[in-house]
């Protein structure tokens, strides 16, 4: 994860790619770490009118000035636009007002379903933290962006436990089960950027990060990963993007 590609670390590339998924004026359900940095980056550069919701009830139009470990840290409250309840921000989500939500997880599968509940390795079940707000964001946001390290055990063909719904078993599944949110739009990994096929709902490799070969991505994926005919390369972070990132993560705690 710390590998350098050109002048930027993989995590820097991931954050910059995440930021580019945010359009100006959008309402974003923000998570901690990389998504929070992506929010800060988007706000500083191309999306000055972005609004960020946090599931603990905080609404901000600008990233906090101090470093955060959790969204409940005092610097995230001071200077917020509004502080309210978890239910209130979830209601905005359920009302369809949230344009994009960021998600991560222990596993993501071929149809963008996420698992953060438990995994089994070498016959031993490991209990993971669970959904938090992820199942809600995955169910209710107009679209989601998943940010994850790209490792084969994290990319199984089918998640062991479906915590947060992607496209289930295919593109029509969400409608069948009654979900109203749009589902995953992008997966940003340490190796590339993936989208979802409009017909099948299956994950497709759309971009590789600089210096990454498509076969490397496929080798780290637990199914026969489709590659887009017009495979691109993730643009390198610009000097401006890197400068802003360093401002928000001066010690590289999250992107080093």
């Amino acid at each position: 994860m710390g590998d350098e590609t050109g002048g930027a670390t993989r995590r820097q590339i991931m954050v910059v790619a995440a930021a580019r998924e945010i359009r100006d004026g959008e309402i974003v359900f923000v998570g901690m770490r990389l998504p929070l940095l992506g929010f800060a980056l988007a706000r500083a550069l191309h999306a000055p009118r972005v609004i960020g919701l946090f599931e603990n009830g905080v609404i901000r139009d600008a990233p906090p000035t101090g470093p955060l470990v959790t969204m409940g840290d005092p610097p995230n409250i001071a200077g917020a636009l509004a502080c309210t309840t978890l239910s209130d921000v979830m209601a905005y989500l359920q009302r369809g007002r949230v344009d994009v939500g960021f998600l991560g997880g222990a596993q993501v599968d071929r149809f963008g379903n996420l698992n953060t509940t438990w995994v089994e390795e070498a016959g031993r079940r490991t209990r993971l933290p669970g959904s938090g707000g992820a199942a809600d964001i995955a169910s209710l946001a107009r679209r989601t962006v998943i940010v994850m390290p790209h490792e084969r055990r994290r990319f199984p063909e089918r998640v062991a436990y479906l915590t947060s719904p992607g496209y289930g078993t295919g593109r029509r599944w969400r409608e069948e089960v009654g979900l109203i949110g749009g589902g995953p739009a992008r997966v940003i990994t340490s190796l590339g950027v993936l989208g979802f096929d409009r017909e099948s709902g299956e994950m497709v490799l759309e971009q590789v990060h600089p210096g990454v070969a498509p076969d490397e991505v496929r080798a780290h994926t637990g199914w026969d990963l489709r590659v887009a005919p017009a495979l691109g390369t993730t643009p390198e972070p610009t000097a401006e993007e890197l400068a802003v990132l360093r401002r928000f993560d001066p010690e590289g705690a999250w992107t080093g």
Partner: protein
Amino acid sequence: MDKVVTIEEAIARHVRDGMTIAMGTGLESCIPFAAGHEIVRQGRRDLTLVGPVSDILFDQLIGAGCVARVIAAWVGNVGAGIAYSFRRAVEDGVPRPLAVEDHSNFTLALALEAAARGVPYLPSRTALGSDLVRGHPRLREVTCPFTGARLLAVAALRPDVTVLHVQRCDREGNAHLWGNLGVSLEAARAAGTVILTCEELVDDDVIRSDPNRTLIPGFLVGAVAVVPAGSHPSPTQGYVNRDDRFYDEYHEETRSRDGFLRWLDRLVLGTRDHQEYLARIGEDRIRRLRPREPRPAAPVSYGV
């Protein structure tokens, strides 16, 4: 009615073995650690703990053997990831087996809110198709009587006691809260009774000067205990910042069961009360967590 008691009395009177207790309802802030430690000291057993985030306070009660079940959306150490006592209980039954009722943040909020409103359930559009719903005692798919849409019904969850740490309240328990609210209001309204720990006990007039800040009315409250820094190591906006190092240290020290037991002995079982706990943490360290930069709210008048 004056409800001010020590935290020891509040727990002794209101928390009994086998009860369902909601704590940590502010998510990562205002977690009532002092109250939780007192539950450990008094040796309560077979508790069901409810909180959207089952942070290290829950981990401590689990490791201490107080807990039979956790109802939560997320379990871990909000600073450092893994909650080892929780893992040991779930994976290995140490010190005792632990049942987990898994939720999303929203379904847990809705379960509390249904109880707070006196309805047996609330409908939502979340988590449909998720494995969370399978065989879940409190989640069921229903059909909207007006539109025919598929919805997820979330059944009411009524804690016996909700424990909140708040900034300030009067002797009746009318409390001013500010900062992110998580599910604290729903949990307080849902519960049989509420224990408040507060940073400051204030005169009635302070509360009545700003009724929109009174998010917990006193008629919900059974006991008030004045416990400054009672949320340590979690923050209470305007009174105490987050002790990030504590979470990391806890993570390291509690990797093994023995390490956990040493930790518990040093800071909980081996301290008489929260003051002694804070003294072990170190006065200087606590002082450094006090806010240095004041951020006063703009004035407001209720003038007539």
